């Protein structure tokens, strides 16, 4: 526990903030999870709640609170690594303590490991708890379905890997810039970039395909949608304007009992929820590799940089 105590003594406010935020949000998520699951205990009894029979079981009762909690977790998963990672090197360089610490340490790499590893461990524990709670919350909100890609990136393993990536990038940022406040500010922009970049890369980890009815969102699944088009009854492509005209013509001719085969078909493209583990594995491997690379580059910067 010496390393944990040392890490806390060096960054009491950052670690205190991270602990407060992560555990607070995790507690809120777990409380909401238990609350929603307790509602479902009455399923199968006379007068069972509406939540037992609808896909969006808690839309009317818990949506607002769940969304606010998930929003908080989504911000904290980037905010906490920035607050923990940026000061590690930036403060040492800015306050000139690196001038003493680095020559005394013998090996700068060893010094870096002693400073970064404890903070990384603390971050992993705190964000891990929050990620677990976020995963449970997402599953409790859609109790009757596979949650698939819903809230991907802000729950479970994907949240932990992304947070570690941002943490490593934040440490590097502190080492390169060497000033706390600007590094924090750039760190915020960097986190926004990481989030946008990861979301943009998501459809490319595996190839998209046409989704079957049961794999699409209308089948109650949570796939990753990448495209949508209408197909004419004969199977050929059809424009949006023609779809409306065709629908109107069919309904006018046959009324509401019109044969669905006469109407334009909705075709969804994407990645089925059943392929989520495959996507998660590939993304985690890539993000993990990127984190290691950034760590190596940080070590390079620390070895080369002048301490002033």
């Amino acid at each position, binding site marked *: 526990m010496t390393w944990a105590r040392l890490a806390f003594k060096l*960054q009491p*406010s*950052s670690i205190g*903030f991270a602990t407060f935020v992560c555990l607070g949000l995790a507690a809120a998520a777990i409380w909401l999870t238990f609350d929603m699951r307790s509602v479902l205990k009455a399923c199968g009894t006379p007068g069972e709640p509406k939540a037992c029979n609808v896909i969006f079981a808690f839309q009317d009762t818990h949506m607002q609170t769940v969304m606010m909690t998930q929003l908080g977790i989504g911000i904290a998963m980037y905010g906490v690594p920035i*607050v923990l990672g940026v*000061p590690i090197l930036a403060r040492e360089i*800015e*306050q000139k303590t690196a001038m003493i610490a680095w020559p005394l340490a013998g090996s700068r790499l060893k010094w870096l490991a002693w400073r970064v590893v404890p903070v990384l461990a603390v971050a992993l524990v705190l964000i891990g708890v929050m990620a677990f709670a976020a995963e449970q919350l997402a599953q409790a909100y859609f109790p009757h379905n596979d949650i698939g890609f819903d809230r991907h990136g802000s729950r479970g393993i994907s949240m932990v890997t992304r947070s570690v990536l941002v943490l490593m990038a934040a440490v590097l940022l502190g080492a390169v*810039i060497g*000033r*706390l*406040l*600007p590094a*924090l*500010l*750039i760190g*915020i*922009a960097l986190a926004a970039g990481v989030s946008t970049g990861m979301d943009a890369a998501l459809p490319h980890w595996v190839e998209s395909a046409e989704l079957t009815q049961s794999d699409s969102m209308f089948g109650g699944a949570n796939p990753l949608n990448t495209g949508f088009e209408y197909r004419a009854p004969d199977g050929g492509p059809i424009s949006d304007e023609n779809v409306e005209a065709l*629908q*109107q013509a069919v*309904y*006018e001719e046959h*009324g*509401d009992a019109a044969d669905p085969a006469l109407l334009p078909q909705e075709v969804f493209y994407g990645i089925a929820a059943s392929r989520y583990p495959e996507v998660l594995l590939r993304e985690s491997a890539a993000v993990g590799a990127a984190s290691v690379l950034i760590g190596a580059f940080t070590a390079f910067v620390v070895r080369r940089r002048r301490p002033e």
Partner: protein
Amino acid sequence: MLPQLRLAWRMQRWEMSLLVGAALVLTVAALILPSTEGGGGDPRMIVLFLTLVGPILIGSVLGVGLVAAEVEHGTAQVAWSLARSRLRWLFIRAWPLSAVGVLVCLVLGAAAARLMDETSPSNIFMAAMRGPIVALHLLSALAVATLVGAVLRRVVPALLVAIAVNAGILILLSSAVQPWMEERATLIPVEERSVDPVIAVLEYETVSISSTGELTLTEPECDTQASCMAAMAELTHAVRVVPGSAYLPLLGFAAAASLIIVVAASAATVGVMTRFGPG
């Protein structure tokens, strides 16, 4: 004046560069986006969102750097002893940042207003993302962050608290004007949406238009798919908006609120600096 500007640049060149750089990038983006195909789509909302939160973030960073960084680095002891008065010291350190911040935010606010008027985005916070209100956000964030820094005297905790407090103030002020904006909202057909400037879009509705041009809220009456499509085709899509004429009173409210915040926070900062010293 010039030496004070040069001093501010030397003390906080990173922060000032980020402020000017970020504002410049956002301004250019806001000016370019209306001429891009389809009005820009999502990038437009990102620019507007950053116009809303950017001044809060940058104001907090700049403000915390004024007192908390000086105290944490131990330079306040010398600087405050040499200064004629702490109020004067604070003013000399704060005004160049405020002046540069206000200048770039005024330009950014004007560009964001043009972006909104040309591309008609929908957001209830639109009023807070356009015109001089953007500069007022930066000023109050700067003053509040300076006070928080003076109280907490550590950069990281002060920055976190300052961001939280400033975000709270923004939400509080926006909520305070919401009922007033609801009262002034008018219903206009969607096609007329881009004729006059609009400072907030509150709701989308379906209406029927009488022969005198009067709009009446109307729900489509139908019981089958076919009749619903026919009923919707006869109705007009309308939008409940707060007209541009409401911006001036809103600006007046924001200016008064910012003035109170800046004066109160600055007085409290000097009080804290005098009472507790640089140690």
